[in-house]
Every structure is written in C-alpha cells, then in structure tokens.
C-alpha cells in the first residue's frame, strides 16, 4: 500500500541528490561572471592592496570619483604586506587576478609581474612624469616595465619623543657613543631607549642592509644576496657584530627579537610612552604631523614627536637606503572599457592629484617628478624639520633598501639569522648558513 509513496520519496531524493551533485560541480567549476562593466557604461574596478590605509584612501577616492563619476573602485585593503601577499597569491591561483593591485619590488617582483600588463600598453603618454631611475625597480627580468612606481621609502630612521627627551635632559644621539649614553640614561630613568621590532624579518633585514653599508666600501650585502660574495665575508661579519652590540649594549630593549614593529614596538612601547624612540622607516614620519591618525588617544598624544636618521654605527658615515616602496600593477586580463578606466586611475595615482594627496600624508615620498609633500603650517617646528631631514636623507641615499636575490625567501632567512645573532649566536657561523 505504501510502496508507490516510498518509491516517489526515493525518486525525489535521488533527483535531489543528482541536482545537488550537479550544482556542486557547476558552482565549483564556474567563475564569477561579472565583468565589471554595467549596461549604463559605468565601470567597477577591483583594487587589492595593503596601503593606502583606510584613512588615506578616503580622500584619494573622493577626488578620483569626483573627476570620474562613471568609475567605481572596489577597494580591498589588507592588514599588512605579508597578509596581503598571501591573499593576492590565493586570488591569482584562483584565476581572479584583481584589476589593479599593489606590488612590492624585490625578489618576488618577477612572479607578480607575470600577471601584470606592460605599462607601455597604457602609460606611455605620461610615464615620463615618473622619476626615470625608479622604473628600473619595476622592470622585470624580461625587460618589461610591469608596474608603476608610486611611493618611495627608505631606512633607517627613528621616531622620537622630543618631549620625553627634554624631560630627561637628553639630546638626540649623533654617533654610537652618544647613542650608548642616551640609552644608558633612559634605562636608568625607567624607559626603554629604542624600542626595536626585531621579531619582524623585514625590519631586521632593512636595518642590517642599512648597517652593512657602513663597512668596507659599502654594498657588499647586495653582492652576497646575488650570490657573488660569501655572507660570512669580513665586512658583513663586522656589521653583524655591530648588530649584536645594539642588543648587548642595551640600545634595543631586552626581548626585542620577540617584539614586532607594528603593533608592539609602536603601540606597547612608543605610543605607550614607555620608550624614548623607535627605529623605523621613513614612512613613519607621518606620525610627527598634525592630524595624523596614530597618536590621538595614545599616551604621546600631547607630546612633540620627531624623526631623524639613525646615527652612524659602523666605520663609514651612515647613508639611508631607499627604493620603491609601493608600485601599482594593472591586470594583464584588462581590456576595453575596464582598461581605459584602470589607466585613468593609474595616471591619477602615479602622476596626478592622487599622487599629491597620498604624498601629503607622508606615507611615502613621491615617485613622480615635480611633486613634493605639501605640509600644513599647523605642524610643529620639529615635525617640519623631521620631514626636511628625512627628505634630505632619502635624496642623498646611495643604496637600495631591498635586496634582490635568486633566493625569493632571502628576507625571511636573513631575518631569522639576525634574530639568532641578536640572541647571542656567533655572527660568522650564522651568516654562513645563508651561503647555501
């Protein structure tokens, strides 16, 4: 009696199972489908990046959309460059290359440039507005300029709390002896002298690149990275010993190799008013300016902050490193109206109003010729001097900030070696591990 009904139920379930299986297969195999161009001609572009920050992005996009109301940019920011690169890798592997994406120069540039459009296809009319020497960094091994340099940055600088320096009766250090003296007095007063985020491979590496150029004729580290010089060569060992000295001499805090630059060194030490200063890169001069987004609500909110080049530690006078900190690439899959729209945004950010707006935040220094930061008159004298000092240091920079190497993971490997050295390992034998 119930047989027909049971059969119907079974058939229904069977059909359902088939339909679900088919749906899974179909959804698993199909792509997004949205090409980003609406029927009314408006274009939506995806833009994946780690900077600009949300605060920096708001005025940039406002100005762009005012000029281009028919273009919408779907901005996908990420928390930090390393997280961003993981996300970008996943998107690329999934076949969903963003229409526009931020890119770093260095060893991995070639990989990402494979998915980027040749700038000659969309920027040839205005690319000469970018400082020509920077284009070398965004040229891949096939000789294609695959990305547009947008901002430059350099190392090594330190952000300092001038108010705290004054309270303790201290002056800014100018050489290693005064660096030690300041550190000793700060520690005696219960403050951390220089809050170093040595847990970050990128920062340990940036610092060491800057430091190593103060030994011999300078530049040995780039040869070592290229495989043309042993890592345990004389000048690099001397630099590694000096690096170790910064920890053992108490310039950097105990446990510095367990401290990240962001957020720990910045938030838990410097912004918490527990350290006099924190070593960092030129981009952080932005924290000295009025209206910055970092200091409000922190313990240093009412203090005067400044930035200065880190004093010489080695045999030769310290010179900042510099290089393209941020470049913009356009997907090689772009064409038609989307390419036209992306090219407009690229021009806006590289040589147009977008460049000026972003540069004014001091996130980085302009890659475009003829543009300089417009700093408001409401800034402190110290902030203005800091911007001038950092600008001058970068203009006189002799060496690149990032290493280029056949070993794409060199920065990470070098960071680990430097952490081991900071914790007391033998500099020569640790550096030798990088020779493999």
């Amino acid at each position: 009696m119930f047989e027909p009904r049971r059969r119907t139920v079974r058939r229904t379930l069977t059909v359902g199972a088939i339909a679900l299986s088919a749906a899974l297969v179909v959804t698993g195999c199909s792509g997004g489908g949205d090409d980003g161009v609406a029927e009314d001609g408006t274009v939506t572009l995806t833009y994946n990046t780690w900077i600009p920050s949300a605060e920096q992005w708001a005025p940039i996009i406002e100005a762009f959309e005012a000029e281009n109301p028919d273009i919408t940019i779907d901005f996908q920011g990420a928390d930090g460059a390393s997280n961003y690169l993981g996300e970008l890798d996943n998107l690329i592997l999934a076949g969903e290359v963003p229409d526009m994406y931020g890119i770093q120069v260095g060893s991995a540039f070639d990989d990402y440039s494979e998915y980027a459009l040749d700038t000659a296809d969309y920027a040839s009319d205005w690319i000469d507005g970018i400082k020509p020497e920077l284009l070398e960094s965004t040229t891949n091994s096939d000789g294609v300029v695959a990305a547009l340099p947008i901002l430059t940055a350099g190392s090594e600088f330190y952000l300092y709390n001038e108010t705290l320096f004054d309270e303790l009766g201290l002056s800014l250090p100018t050489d290693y002896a005064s660096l030690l003296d300041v550190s000793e007095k700060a520690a005696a007063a219960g403050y951390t002298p220089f809050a170093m985020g040595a847990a970050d491979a990128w920062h340990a590496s940036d610092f060491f690149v800057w430091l190593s150029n103060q030994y011999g004729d300078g530049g040995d580290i780039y040869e070592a990275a290229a495989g043309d010089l042993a890592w345990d060569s004389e000048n690099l060992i001397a630099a590694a010993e000096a690096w170790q000295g910064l920890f053992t001499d108490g310039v950097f805090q105990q446990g510095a190799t367990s401290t990240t630059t962001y957020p720990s060194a910045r938030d838990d030490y410097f912004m918490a008013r527990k350290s006099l200063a924190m070593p960092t890169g030129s981009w952080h001069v932005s924290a000295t300016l009025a209206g910055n987004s970092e200091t409000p609500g922190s313990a240093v909110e009412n203090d005067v902050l400044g930035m200065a080049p880190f004093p010489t530690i080695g045999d030769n006078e310290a010179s900042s490193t510099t290089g393209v900190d941020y470049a913009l690439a356009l997907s090689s899959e772009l064409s038609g109206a989307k390419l036209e729209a992306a090219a407009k945004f690229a021009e806006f950010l590289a040589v147009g109003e977008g460049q000026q707006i972003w540069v004014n935040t001091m996130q980085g220094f302009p890659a475009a010729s003829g543009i300089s930061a417009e700093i408001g008159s409401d800034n402190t004298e110290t902030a203005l001097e800091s911007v001038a000092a950092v600008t001058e240091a970068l203009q006189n920079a002799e060496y690149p900030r990032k290493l280029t190497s056949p070993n794409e993971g060199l920065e990470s490997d070098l960071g680990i070696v430097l952490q081991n050295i900071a914790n007391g390992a033998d500099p020569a034998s640790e550096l030798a591990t990088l020779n493999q």
Partner: protein
Amino acid sequence: MRSFTGRWTPYLYIAPIVIIAGGLLYYSIGFAVYASMTDWNGLTKMDFIGLDNYVRMFQDRTFYIALRNTVIFMVFTVLLQAILGLLVAVIAKERLPGSNIFKAIFFLPIAMAPAIIATVFKYMFEANYGSLNETLRALGLLGANDNIQWLGADLGIWSIVVIGIFSWMGFSMMVYFAGLMSIPDELYEAAELDGAGWWRRLFSITIPSLRGTTSVLITLGIVGSLKTFDIVWLTTMGGPGVSTNLLSTFLYQERQGREAGYSSAIGIVILVTAFVLALVQMRLSNREK
C-alpha cells in the same frame, strides 16, 4: 531483479559528500603530495624535482628544531592536560559546594577564541612591561632592571606549552567528567566496604574505567598538537629566530618565504606523522582491551 536506477541509488545518495570530501580534502592532499615533489614558489615556477624537498628537509636544522618543539608540545600538553583534567573532574564530581562554578571556570577557556587567549598571554609574558614580570618585580622576586624572557629562545616553547594546557585542559576535564558519570556508584561503594581509600579507588576503579576516554583524549591531543598554529603564531611567530617553531608554523614560514613546494613537503610529513601516531595509539588502546 533490481533496476539500474535502484542499484545506483545508494551511490547517488552519498555522491554530494563524496564530491565535497573528494574535491576539498583528498584532491588537496593529492595536490600537496604532487607539490611537495616540485620547486613550486606558490605562483609560477613548478618543476618536478622528485624527493629533493624531503632530502632538504632532513638536512634542515629548522626542521629538527620544529620537530623537537612539536614533540615537547605534544607530550607535555597531552600528558598534563589529561592529568590535570582528570584531577579537576574527579574533584568536581565530589559535589562540593561551588563545584559547578569550579567546572565553569575551568571550562571557560574552551569558549574563548585561541586568538584572544594568545593575545592575553602575549601581554602577560612580555619581557619588559608584561604583567607576569611586573608581578615578580612587585613581589621582589625579580630585580627592577631584570626580566625573564618568557617568550625568548630558551623559555618560549615552555610558555607555549602553558598556553596550550590552559586552552584545552577544560575540554579534558569535561570529557573525563562525562566519563566519570558513567561509572556505577556501586563499584565505589563495594570498594569502600572492602576498605579502599580515595587514592586506591582512583587508581583501581576510576582510571581503569576511563581508559577509553583517555585513549580518545590522547588521539585528539596528538592530532591537535600537530595542528596547533594560532597560539604560536600570535605569541612568538615561531621566533626568536626559529626557536619556538612547531612543524605547522615552520610550514607557514616557508610558504611566506615563497617555498610552496617545500612547505607542501612539510605538510605531508605532518599528515603522515598524525596518521601514524593516531594508528599506533588506537592499536595500543585496542590491545589493552
């Protein structure tokens, strides 16, 4: 005679889960096995290099540090979680005043996200201004300018073990508590009549009766230890250097360094290790039965 559709009906019922498991799990494992035999950088380059990644791994000092740390973490967390969990469960079963609050307190970490636990411990363990060192200074157990680097190269892995135990001890306690409830009270009453004390009852009745529970907890603990990533990455990122790396963080670090083929090989070693250890544990457990 069954029709063609009838014969295939059972297979169609399980088709969705087979597709999901096959596509998401076994395909991924298969791909990882293949990737482990290539020099894949995560994006472009992917040439077959045979077993080179495995040879390299067994010559890599970081692998041995990560392996040692994983073994330390696994042994101590599994062992101490089980002992402390059992102890707390046995005490909680006594129905003392406030035992429900007691259970809730110990179970609370299970309800907290590992990221929150790791962040709280990171601040507690911080060398210069962390609450643990500040407390020791306030108690006069540490000099004003001295500090203990709880997350440093020497103590870091032990601090991570403490975090692991804190995070999961409540789970052991609840599983043991459920197991304890299934032991008949008559057994304890008979033992008491025979003059068995508290400790004797614990070792002669409670622990043997909970053998199955212990076996499950050990298996889960082994697999959980091999998967542990968040509490390490959010406290030490495997550093300083590579001193607190577990196999899982070592894998992630290599992937970040654009060594996707190599990190796949590490993943396969973790998978095989988890499989073998779980198998051994189950065999041992069955033999005891």
